[in-house]
């Protein structure tokens, strides 16, 4: 009995030998697809409209707020045990959080995740002007700072000093503590970049107009747009997330080819 089963077992170990490699390849493909999915995150474009700040829109915003936000933030937007008060956060904060789909929040967690936007552009603006009308706070930025024709060199230096430690030098994002992370900045619209800087959403520090002036913010936005548009001089960027993806690539393909060559050189010719 045993003798008859032996050849088939031997055959199985031969195919089994390929299995670890197949797993590694699957993991690599999975990682690349996840990275690609992150890069493909898409944000709606919003334009600053100066005429939006009317009583009609504020009233519409109040209705939308009471229907969609008041459960957590309170009927008067003054906060509950579940969510902070929104008095004084400003229109910019609402435009960023709702305009990128982070609010209404999908679920409790280390930080609010981006998801498809749930309101039309007009509704987002109405919510923003309503919350902006409660108390003074940072407003939706002026369009002159969002054109992307600022000083690239200055923007690059400011980005590396103030932003790159969390968002990665290539703006590809990075990990923070306990499940929090700084998101990649590719695909984020200029107005949302500006609003994030001025309001400091989630755990991002606040960069108000006295710390980084509106012109400097415009420079940073211009630099990020340049970074996104410029081709990578080194070829395939592997997600630009640094030693993790590059190391993995070399471990699998670089070392793999060295091992294969070594085996071929030392094997006897048939």
């Amino acid at each position, binding site marked *: 009995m045993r003798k008859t089963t032996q050849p088939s077992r031997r055959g199985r170990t031969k195919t089994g030998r390929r299995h670890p490699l197949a797993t590694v390849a699957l993991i690599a493909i999975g990682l690349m697809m996840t990275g690609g999915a992150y890069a493909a995150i898409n944000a709606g474009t919003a334009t600053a409209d100066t005429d939006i700040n009317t009583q009609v829109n504020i009233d519409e915003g109040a209705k939308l707020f009471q229907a969609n936000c008041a459960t957590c933030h309170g009927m008067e937007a003054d906060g509950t045990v579940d969510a902070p008060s929104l008095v004084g956060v400003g229109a910019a904060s609402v435009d960023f959080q709702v305009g990128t789909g982070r609010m209404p929040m999908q679920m409790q967690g280390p930080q609010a995740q981006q998801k498809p936007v749930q309101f039309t552009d007009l509704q987002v603006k109405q919510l923003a002007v309503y919350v902006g009308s409660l108390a003074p706070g940072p407003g939706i930025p002026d369009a002159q700072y969002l054109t992307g024709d600022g000083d690239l060199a200055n923007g690059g230096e400011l980005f590396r000093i103030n932003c790159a*430690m969390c968002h990665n030098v290539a703006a590809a994002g990075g990990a923070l503590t306990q499940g929090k992370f700084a998101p990649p900045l590719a695909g984020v619209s200029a107005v949302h970049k500006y609003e994030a800087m001025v309001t400091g959403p989630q755990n991002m520090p606040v960069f108000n107009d*006295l710390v980084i002036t509106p012109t400097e913010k415009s420079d940073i936005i211009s630099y990020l747009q340049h970074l996104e548009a410029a081709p990578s001089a080194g070829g395939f960027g592997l997600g630009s997330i640094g030693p993790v993806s590059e190391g993995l690539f070399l471990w699998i393909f670089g070392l793999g080819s060295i091992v294969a060559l070594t085996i071929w050189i030392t094997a006897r*010719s048939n």
Partner: protein
Amino acid sequence: MAQDDNGGKDSVSSGQHVSHDALGASPGTAVIVRDAVQDPGLPPHRPRTTDINPKAEKRAERVVYTLFYLSLAGSIFAIAAYIAFPIIEGDSGSVRLNNMFVGLGMTLALLGLGVGAVHWGKALMHDHEGIDIRHPQPGTTEERAAAINVIDEANRESGFGRRTMIRNSLLGALIVFPLPAVVLFRGLAPMDQDPVALLKHTMWEKGTRLTHDPSGVPIKASDLTLGSSVQVIPEGLAELEHHKIEEKAKAAVLLMRLDPKDLNPLPGRETWAYDGIVAYSKVCTHVGCPVALYEQQKHHLLCPCHQSQFDVTNNCEVIFGPAKRALPQLPITVDSEGYLIAQSDFTEPVGPSFWERA
């Protein structure tokens, strides 16, 4: 068990071994294995297909010279690519094309040579196995005696052993000869500087204004809102002409504004913050990476290199990771014009451990 597998012949021979060794060695000093592994010797020579089949030999020959021709084509391709895809100044795409095609040509050139040579050696060159016996290292007795004789004669004729004054003065001169080099090389290192003092003090002193990195614009306490964080350098650093990088590496500070209620200052440090504004050294106490990943809700500072975490509300004490000490705090206050100033230098050395640090 083993005897069954090996068959009768092996068990007989190993049985003979037992009786033979048992006579000479005392019991307990030799371990005699009944089923000792036999030296299998070299496997029988197996001819390759290229040895037997003339067609296979021809094919291998074709593969080898094709590879060498491919290598030749690769080299020419690399030259052609260098001319066809020139590097245009200011166009990073041209650099990429140039590098890629020149690199592909050179890869083909080198791999063609290497793979061809290895395949030639493996498939076509003679594959008989031979043993080269190592040559003895020492010379013959006569040669060695002659060498000693030469040395003795040189000693006798020069008087090296006999004229001790000459010998000792020569040795002394040779020993002192390299000393000027030591002095010269010492001159390349910084002079009149105590590294311990350099590591213990930074550009900060009483009254130095906190300024923005990189512009050097002074910062007012009123500039910061709750949740702000500012990268800070001392006043005057932006204008330094020498040692700017060294001074910045020691004096870089992260300024953060928290709710004053969130801060739990250590005894004696109650006056080091100004209205919730705290300043901490940006140099990690582990191996000196810049710690500037500030989370404004959790008040955690994260070091990106080895994931050390510091709690800003509790004097930047370490809450996770390999760092051993809290980040040094810079005592700050405001001057009469409302600008943030340092009360003094850091009260402890910044950065990781060093030899004089307790």
